């Protein structure tokens, strides 16, 4: 290494490492990264927020692995032990449960803001698609993780959740058997969900998250077409350190909220699952499945000769498909023209979800 190239701002160790792994390239990359500043800049923070909460999930999840025992006879007892005997066991589990909820919430905000600001348009289609994949994976994480305590709620949520793909024609019964590891929800389902939750999904997430972050790095942040049309000043701020420091403030707030929720509302365990007990009155899923749950509850048995639940499941599938294919549905934004459909679709979806979620929490469970 020639001496003239040595920048005085770095020490010996930095230069030693730079010679071997090329720190200069990383530095250049980090310096180059800029974040557009305009009235919608706030929405750029939710991707990083989701990532931060995901990191908490990974860390708290690893801690839970040290005490959890994945079998129908031991799972519930091992969590009981964790909650009552292990020091701060209640805290680790509550952080994991609450952080999961906050992560899904941050993810929904991130997705709807990307939808409203048309961030999916060319050349960011792959960023959008990988983000859609990550949302699906997060919901799969939530669904598989929910069963692991092997309590009453978990048992029925899984019985219903695995029955839902079962209503599909032709492949339905195979899918149900495949998910359950047999005909019914048993210990076989528990070990299957455990393997999916702690190994299969993390592996897939690593790949897709890597792709997602690489695409964000490659294309930079999208400036909404609406902002560009109104003559954006082209003001930017450097990612390092300006944006990252602001990010950190947000993460610190999230950590505060998380700690408060975990301390004041620790995760409950409920009663152990019993496959020969009726579903408890007032049973409900996690809030992010509530709108779908309530829809299935309100759909009549038959609509135009088709079973209501099949129509419901196909409806959810169609909405998901339109959402994930939005870069290809919305041809106008791709060529820089104003497009109304994505915003109308997004707002309708948000309103529907809020309404049905509200009904889910307020309608009498016995009427």
């Amino acid at each position, binding site marked *: 290494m020639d001496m003239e190239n040595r920048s005085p701002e770095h020490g010996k160790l930095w230069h030693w490492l730079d010679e071997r792994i090329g720190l200069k390239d990383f530095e250049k990359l980090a310096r180059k990264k800029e974040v557009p500043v305009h009235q919608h800049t706030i929405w750029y923070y939710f991707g990083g927020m989701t990532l931060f909460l995901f990191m908490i999930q990974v860390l708290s999840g690893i801690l839970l692995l040290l005490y959890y025992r994945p079998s129908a006879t031991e799972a519930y007892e091992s969590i009981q032990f964790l909650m009552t005997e292990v020091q701060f066991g209640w805290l680790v589990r509550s952080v994991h449960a609450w952080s999961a909820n906050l992560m899904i919430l941050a993810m929904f905000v991130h997705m709807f803001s990307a939808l409203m600001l048309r961030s999916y348009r060319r050349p960011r289609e792959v960023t959008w698609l990988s983000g859609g994949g990550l949302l699906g994976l997060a919901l799969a994480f939530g669904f598989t993780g929910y069963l692991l305590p092997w309590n009453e709620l978990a048992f*029925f949520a899984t*019985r*219903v959740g695995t*029955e*839902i793909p*079962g*209503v599909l024609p032709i492949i339905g019964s*195979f899918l149900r*058997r*495949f998910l*359950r*590891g*047999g*005909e*019914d929800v048993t210990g*076989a389902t528990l070990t299957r969900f455990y393997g999916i939750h702690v190994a299969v999904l993390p592996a897939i997430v690593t790949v897709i998250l890597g792709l997602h972050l690489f695409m964000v790095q490659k294309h930079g942040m999208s400036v909404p077409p609406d902002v560009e049309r109104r003559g954006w000043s082209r003001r930017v701020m450097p990612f390092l350190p300006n944006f990252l420091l602001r990010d950190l403030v947000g993460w610190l707030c999230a950590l505060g909220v998380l700690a408060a929720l975990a301390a004041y509302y620790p995760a409950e365990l409920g009663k152990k699952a019993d*496959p*020969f*007990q*009726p*579903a*408890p*009155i*007032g*049973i409900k899923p996690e809030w992010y499945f509530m709108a779908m*749950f309530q829809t*299935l*509850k*309100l*759909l*009549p*048995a*038959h609509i135009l000769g088709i*079973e*209501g*639940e099949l129509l419901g499941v196909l409806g959810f599938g169609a909405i998901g498909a339109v959402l994930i294919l939005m870069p290809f549905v919305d041809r106008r934004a791709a060529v820089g023209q104003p497009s109304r459909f994505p915003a109308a679709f997004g707002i309708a979806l948000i309103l529907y979800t809020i309404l049905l979620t509200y009904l889910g929490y307020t309608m009498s*469970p*016995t*009427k």
Partner: protein
Amino acid sequence: MAEGMLKQFIERRNFLNWFLGTTAGAFVFSVLYPLSRYLTPPPVAESTARSVTLSLKPKEVKPNSGQIFRFGSQPGILVKTQAGELKAFSAACTHLACIVQYRSDISHIWCACHNGHFDLNGKNIEGPPPKALEEYAVNVRADQIVVSKKS
């Protein structure tokens, strides 16, 4: 001459590509086939019992009440109507397979998950369930309740 060689070369390349492709395909198949078979759970012998003797005595069952019993690996529900008649059904809701319960306040069999109602003949009368519950035959022999599949 040169043209002939080129043609021969292309043919040879096509042949080799085809060979390589089928080999790769066979390799992928030889991995995916056992993998997919591994992931499909093996069938577990279903209990073929067509009837079950409950551990309850007929006198212990109060009128206008219901309870879950085991029918092999499946849950069933035994109901005693207000008139004192014993009835039994499959307890898996025909909607999304939650386990139903007896509601003594309205004399319905009811599913707490999605608010499905069945009458005491197992017929779906309200809410999302698309079909009736399967009904079992109940026989009281001496001091025992025997539930068996119909037909």
